[in-house]
């Protein structure tokens, strides 16, 4: 029998975590333990998560490939499927197809300084890279994590931020947009592009991974350019509407590039060469 | 007529009375025409007028990107111009922001479209500039003949008729997009919380979509027939629209597209509306 590419794995919701208003993380384990054991992915890849009766929805895998036996996804409730996902409880069943797409160049990052920047919910794919780096800490040189959000309550992975903060070999910089701070906020106040310039990581022997809203990426790229980073050193991930994830349904393309197959990870240099339609 | 049309259009643009003229231009084939948007007086020679001017150009009037285009002129047949009345009543456009160039029309299509056989607006009723001679209205006595014919059969026959018709619907939404009165920014089929109508073009979804499409035009459809003309599957959509027009006329004494001051039938009521249906 030939494989049916539209069939999802059945997953069990193991844990739900509220990250911020409207944002939730689900920890999912494979119902079929053999499939779970054989499953592997790389940081940056995505999948299609489905709630039966509501439909499928695309997110990156937010957990690290170094953590076996489960995957996590973080999402913001905006539409039909995310609303249904948010209403799931521990023990409920979810469908998952994946992993799809390319990944962040973890191999290339070995022996280099890594600067990981996540803005808002865009921290999800970066989180996969962060844990991947931290679980194999010796493979990398300096690890700088810059996290930003509109306000303190919208920061995601708050518990993990504290963990990273306490780790001696991680330089965590957290910031919120002006006006989004609280009286007890112990991070910076300012937009991510400004904070990046303040932190001023060196472009030498470094690779940057950045993810967030398009406007945030755009201005952070300018800041990075000012600091001397070349567009080839900067990796980001595109989020387009997808239905299949398999390079067939025809809606995620940017020019002749299919985000689901040729991406979702692109260098800033690649993004510049694409038609500006994303 | 064509010269008169071009002349008037040119005058409107030259005098700055309008920013844009929406009219018919030459098509890819002698039996077709294509909508054109004209902004410069010298381009008015591109305007054409013939029996292949099918489109109802008033559907462009509600486009958000054209709402900001300033005052617009639109070339209309009598049937098309009826849409202006409804659009004004429903506060989609201001009557003053549109100059209606009404064309006297002896009918379009080859052979003549069915709607043209019962046309009582061969000279447009709603227009600012009339082009061409005044033509007497045709009798509408037999307008609902095809409705009556279908009703002569029993429920099972009608069900079978529509089941066969709707089975061909491919959900391309050409009917909706071409309709001057389907102007919603978000159509009910695009609302998915909950998903009231299945988006798939299986028989169940097709039936629900076609019921809703017709119903949302009850008391509003002006009978321009664009939905039916553009349907790639030849579904007789006007038959359903006409049925509803007939009900609205018989029950509420209302015909869409004529009187700008009369209240909309489906947004108003009379305490003595028929109670026959209700136990």
């Amino acid at each position: 029998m030939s494989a049916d590419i539209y069939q999802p794995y059945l997953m069990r919701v193991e844990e739900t975590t509220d990250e911020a208003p409207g944002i939730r993380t689900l920890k999912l384990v494979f119902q079929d333990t053999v499939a779970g054991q054989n499953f592997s992915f790389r940081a940056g890849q995505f999948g299609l998560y489905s709630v039966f009766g509501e439909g499928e929805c695309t997110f990156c895998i937010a957990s690290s490939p170094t953590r076996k036996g489960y995957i996590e996804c973080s999402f913001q409730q905006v539409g039909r499927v995310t609303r249904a996902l948010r209403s799931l409880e521990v023990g409920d069943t979810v469908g998952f197809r994946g992993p799809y797409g390319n990944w962040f160049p973890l191999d290339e990052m070995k022996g280099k300084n890594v600067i990981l920047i996540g803005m808002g919910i865009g921290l999800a794919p970066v989180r996969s890279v962060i844990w991947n780096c931290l679980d194999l800490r010796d493979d990398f040189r300096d690890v700088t994590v810059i996290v930003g959000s509109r306000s303190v309550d919208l920061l995601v992975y708050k518990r993990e931020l504290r963990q990273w903060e306490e780790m001696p070999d991680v330089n965590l910089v957290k910031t919120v947009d002006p006006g989004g701070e609280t009286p007890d906020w112990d991070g910076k106040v300012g937009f991510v592009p400004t904070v990046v310039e303040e932190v001023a990581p060196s472009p030498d022997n470094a690779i940057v991974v950045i993810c967030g809203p398009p406007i945030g990426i755009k201005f952070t790229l300018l800041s990075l350019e000012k600091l001397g980073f070349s567009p080839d050193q900067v990796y980001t991930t595109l989020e387009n509407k997808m239905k299949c994830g398999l390079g067939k349904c025809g809606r995620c393309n940017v020019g002749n590039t299919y985000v689901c197959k040729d991406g979702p990870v692109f260098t800033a240099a690649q993004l510049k060469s694409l038609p500006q339609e994303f | 007529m064509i010269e008169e049309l071009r002349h008037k259009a040119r005058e409107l643009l030259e005098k700055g009375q309008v920013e844009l003229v929406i009219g018919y231009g030459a098509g890819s084939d002698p039996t077709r025409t294509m909508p054109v948007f004209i902004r410069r007086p010298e381009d008015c020679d591109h305007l054409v007028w013939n029996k292949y001017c099918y489109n109802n150009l008033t559907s462009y009037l509600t486009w958000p990107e054209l709402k900001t285009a300033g005052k617009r002129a639109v070339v209309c047949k009598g049937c098309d111009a009826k849409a202006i009345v409804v659009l004004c009543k429903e506060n989609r456009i201001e009557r003053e922001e549109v100059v209606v160039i009404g064309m006297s029309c002896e009918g379009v299509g080859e052979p003549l479209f069915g709607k043209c056989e019962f046309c009582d607006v061969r000279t447009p009723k709603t227009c600012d500039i009339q082009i061409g001679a005044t033509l007497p209205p045709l009798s509408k006595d037999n307008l609902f003949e095809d409705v009556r014919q279908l009703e002569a059969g029993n429920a099972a026959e009608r069900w079978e008729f529509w089941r066969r018709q709707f089975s061909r619907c491919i959900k391309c939404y050409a009917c909706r997009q071409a309709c001057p009165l389907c102007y919603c920014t978000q159509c009910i089929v695009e609302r998915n919380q909950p998903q009231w109508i299945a988006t798939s073009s299986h028989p169940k979804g097709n039936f629900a979509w076609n019921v809703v499409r017709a119903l949302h035009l009850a008391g509003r459809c002006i009978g321009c027939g664009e939905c039916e003309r553009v349907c790639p599957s030849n579904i007789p959509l006007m038959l359903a629209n006409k049925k509803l027009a007939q009900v609205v006329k018989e029950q509420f004494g209302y015909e869409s597209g004529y009187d700008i001051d009369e209240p909309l039938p489906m947004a108003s009521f009379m305490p003595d509306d028929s109670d026959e249906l209700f136990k």
Partner: protein
Amino acid sequence: MAEFKLNEAKLDELVNALKSEGYRVVAPVEEEGVFVFKEVVDPGEMRLDVLRTARSIKEWFFPRVEPTLRYKFDRGSVTCKGEMPQSPPKTVIIGCRPCDSASLPILDKLFDWDFRDEYWFKRREATTVVAVACDAPDSYCFCTSVGGSPDGTAGSDLLMRKTVGGCYLFESFTKKGWSIIETAKGTLEPAGQNEKVLVGEVPKRFDLNSVKPWLDNNFDHDYWKEISYKCLSCGACAFVCPTCHCFDIQDEADLQGGVRLKGWDSCCLPIFTRHGSGYNPRDTRDARYRQRVMHKFTYYVDKFGLTACVGCGRCCVSCPIDMNICTVVAGAAELAETST
């Protein structure tokens, strides 16, 4: 070289012979004033003289709706059953035009790209395609501009060409095509040496080679706005197109269970690329229409080495406002020439 021919009067016998051999026969059939490919019930309803059916043959391989999954709910747990067709019925499509056949190898590339879509290929394997060469193309035809011809053989298992003498010459190119000849042998007769065939002419409207470079370099050209400002943004063009393959995946369910459906979609519909947040990368009519043209004439070429247009003219016929993709591309070719 054709060895056999069939007298026009024996078309019914051909259909019956195929049916008795277990074939599901699909051919152009009239339905309420439109011609569509349908299963032939009565051989007399088959209409090989129809130049252009309302929709293409793609729906016999890639249906406008098909289930991929059925599931049942049982107190919180879900049981699933895949719906991939394991052995679709043995089918022969008779009477499509060479342009329709040509769309099949084009779509093979997409459905086999990395992930092999067996929904498509199972049906492909089970189906024999018998095309009829065009003796009377019309002004909407432009197959010759996109690499085809009125008697092209791409994608066909067998080609029937009409002769002056009221016969169809049978020429098979594949094993599947040969099986048809074998099955129908009783109705066929040997073809003569110098049979005169009727093949129409389709003038070439543009040069593909000059189109692609221009498209590649003119994503932001004003041309797109000029040609598509009046597009109504319906999906008629895509749904009647033999090569348009974009689809949607939707769930439909009640409290007991439901089904996941794969169904046609169109890049011209405004919600096609709209994100859940409301953001839409292709928010304007020109961006959407440009996508349609670019996808066919450059993106697909970049990805798969083929142009995703076969010149059947269906979109031009169906367009409510008479947008004509041939004219649009010819216009681009003209711009390409004037710019060099």
